[in-house]
């Protein structure tokens, strides 16, 4: 794992909460993808990826998120993203139309 980003995973009521902290770019997307997938148990009904503390996300990261959603879809594990409205990555998500494919919530509570 590069020192640009770190991944934390916590089991929650109805699934798994994975938190990414740092910057996600072309240099670490592959690592982030495998880290998140390995952090999610097979029986997790829901995967929540918290991007609240991600300060940078590029198009490679967007591709990675689409791939992640696709992979989890195979195992019937829906993916939710947590992105606060004032997050610096919000514009990228909207510009790539990702929000129409992967549900995005503004906070963990919701």
């Amino acid at each position: 794992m590069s020192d640009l980003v770190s991944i934390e995973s916590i089991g929650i009521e109805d699934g798994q909460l994975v938190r990414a902290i740092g910057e996600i770019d072309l240099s670490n997307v592959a690592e982030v993808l495998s880290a998140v997938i390995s952090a999610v148990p097979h029986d997790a009904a829901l995967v929540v990826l918290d991007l609240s503390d991600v300060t940078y996300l590029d198009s490679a990261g967007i591709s990675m998120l689409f791939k992640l959603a696709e992979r989890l879809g195979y195992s019937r594990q829906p993916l939710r993203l947590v992105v606060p409205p004032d997050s610096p990555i919000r514009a990228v998500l909207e510009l790539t139309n990702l929000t129409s494919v992967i549900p995005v919530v503004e906070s963990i509570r919701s």
Partner: protein
Amino acid sequence: MTGGELTRSRWEGSTLPAAPDLARLVGRLALVGVAYYLGARLGLNLSLVEQNVTPLWPPTGIAVAVFLVMGRAMWPGVALAALAVNLPISDGALAAAVTAAGNTVAPLVAVTLLQRAGFRRQLDRSRDALALVFVGALPSMAISATVGTAVLLETDLIGRGEAAATWAVWWTGDAMGVLVVAPFLLCLPLFSEERSWRPQRWAQGVGLLLLATATIAWTARSEVPVLFLVLPILAFAAWRLQLRGAAPAALITSLVASWSASRAIGPFSHGGLFEQMFTLQAFNACVALTSFVLSAVVSERNRAAEALAVAAAELEDRVLLRTDELTTANTRLLQEIRDRSEAEEQLSLEEARTRREHQIAETLQRGLLPDRLPQIPGVMLAARYVPATADIQVGGDWYDVIQLPDGLIGLAIGDVAGHGLQAAATMGQVRMALRAYALQDPAPVAVMSSVHQLVSQLPTAEMVTLLYLLFDPGTRHLRFTNAGHPPALVFDTARGEYLGGGLSPPLGVTAEPDFTEVAHQMWPGASLLLYTDGLVERRGVSIQDGLDRLVVASVADASQDVDELCDGLLLQLPGNQPVTDDIALVAMRPLPLVPGPLSLTLSGEARMLVQMRVAVRRWLRENDVSPADENEILIACGEASSNVVRHAYGATPGPMHLTAELVDDTVVIDVRDDGAWRPPADLGGGWGLQLIEGLMDSVDVERSADGTLVRMRRRVRMGATE
């Protein structure tokens, strides 16, 4: 002389002499008359012819001496006495009167001529002796001799044949009287007027007088003609004692010889009157000349010798005096040289001590404070150190600015309790240690903990306050921790703000202090001020007051450069009061860089993307681009760069160039490679270019044989609105 002058002055007055003066005059006249009379009686006893022609007539000598000493006013005494002498031996009163007149006039004329000739009665010059012989004695006495002889002729006491011989006897007698008696009388006043004789001289004088008397007493009666034997004695007396020794002996010699001649005994026992007369007068002349002429010559020589001696003595005195003066001056000079060399020695000792102390202080000072602040691009720094008004120019206050890796800056300011060498030495140690700790790990808490360890282990327990800040000039981000030191001030021309928090007790006070770190983002255009309590503490004024005044003064001077700012603060805050505590002061101002273009060349690899972002982010912040714009520009740059990384080169990465420029309110960024552009289908889902187009106002792609250029533009807003 004195009496003469006195008398003359009385007569010149219009009033009669006063009774006491008259009585004195009469007394003197009587005295003179008596002396003259007695002299005359003596002379008559020595007469060779009859009763009135004598070979030695003392009264003329008396008269001359009296006129010389007491003045010519004494003539009445002389005249009366002469009359009294002549009356019994003359033929009638008229004859006596005429003779007396001649006897009186002769000495008067003699004295008048002598005084005209400048005669000195002291008879101490050869010219005085000659004057007495050739003016006073020989010519003048021709008068009395002529008058007397004429009277004798007229009264028939002598015959015409005897006239010439009588005249000659009379003349020589009167002349001898002058030559023999006058010097004797003139010598008498000298005993009181001149230097008095010592007993030895008296003995000599009396001895010579007795010897002369004995000699003449014998030779004047001896048949052998050895009268001349007395002459060497007289000569000796004249040589040794001058007039006072010779004149009395001469008088006695002449009297004895004359008496012998008048009795016709001894050498005068044979031969005629003329022969006797001639012998006697020749002898008396020799006696007189030997005595007073030799005396005068010797006196003159003595006086010359004396004058010479006086001159020599004076010269010697002057030489002695001069030598004395020279010696004194020399002594003073030597003393002065000694004093000066002592003073110089003292001074050089003092100087050496001062220099040594100064060197120690200077060395410590150098250890204590940075020689000069580091030159850091984009940051202006100034520092001041004002020691308390004391002899030793070092105290407990200190500061340091440390340039750390990654472009970070460590700022430290502190105060050791106390002043002087001890405090300075401790501070020097702390400062050096802090530098080393900061280079090892610049984090504020880590540095503070290490310094605390050091201070706790110092042999002398010192209380140390320390404020340590870590500043990132790229982000204007501050981290600090504070051990009991006054807070740093962040300010600009509008406001000032103390950096509170992160406080712990001073180092060396508690065993395990809990250091905490506080972060602060300095706003653009803000300056940072570190200081010690000497700047804000004033006697009788609360420290809060000082802190408030510091904010006001700093804000007022915030537009000046940091050096002027420091000087201004030192001028305003302590005011006119003497500096009672050391003051250390550090001012730092991060400068907004002049908006210049950014130019980067990185290796076209994925891992370099973060470096690219850091550089661009810093450049955008330096240009005061708003955070929202910053984010999206960074993503656009990232996409353009990612395209280079993924598509420009094959297996071997090539260079990736990025330039950024702010043109008015538009950021223009070029990302360029030296490789071949691939079709957009290869780009990750085509999102890269799509994102760039979505984030930027415009994007142009230029392909060429030697690479591809992506030019992106975006209008931005300025100002940090976090």
